[in-house]
């Protein structure tokens, strides 16, 4: 087991636990793609908020490749994949209660999203 020494404290506090992975994983999606979020409800860990499940949005940014929390949380490996920012209209998420000019940006892992038909 590793030991945290005083000399390491500032480094650990400064860097945290970076999840970015330097591996050439292909991107499934690109900026401008219309996408649909998968409706996933595992009892295990994920980072997919319920309010975007099944919703339609548009990719606005590709952050690069990151560890996949769903597998990482259960000691099943990093399964590296792209993380995208997807923008949703408020009306898409909240129906008629959504303000017409509001937009919501959510970062989603590749395994949470498909190209919309």
């Amino acid at each position, binding site marked *: *087991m*590793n030991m945290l020494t005083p000399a*390491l*404290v500032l480094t650990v506090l400064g860097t*945290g636990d970076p*999840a970015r992975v330097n591996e050439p994983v292909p991107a499934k999606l690109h900026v401008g793609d219309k996408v649909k979020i998968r409706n996933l409800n595992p009892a295990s860990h994920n980072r997919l908020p319920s309010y975007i499940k099944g919703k339609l949005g548009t990719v606005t940014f590709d952050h690069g490749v990151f560890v996949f929390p769903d597998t*990482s949380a259960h000691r099943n490996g990093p399964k590296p994949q792209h993380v995208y920012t997807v923008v949703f209209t408020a009306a898409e998420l*909240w129906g008629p209660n959504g303000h017409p000019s509001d937009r919501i940006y959510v970062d989603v892992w590749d395994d949470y999203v498909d190209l919309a038909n």
Partner: protein
Amino acid sequence: MNGIHDIGGHHGYGPVIVEANEPNFHEVWEGRMLSMMIGCFAAGVYNVDQFRHPIEKMDPRHYLLSSYYEKWLCTVEQNCIDTGIVTRDEVDARHKQLIEGKVT
């Protein structure tokens, strides 16, 4: 999982309260909690995802009523149990000692 932590977009929880000149720690034990958190992280007890999951699995009543660092205590305890460093019985016995004022 879609548990008590997954409340984005839900009504009725009130505004986010922003404290002016917020200190790093409101209580001395919160600083100790940060030390425990990074000590166990550096020792390889958990990664950030393994750290988050036990918080999602807290009893929903406890989750809503507990503070930020209290949630950290729950997941550090659970991860130390999951990796065999301590047992649940040992953690419960320590809680009992603290509640009864037998240790400080």
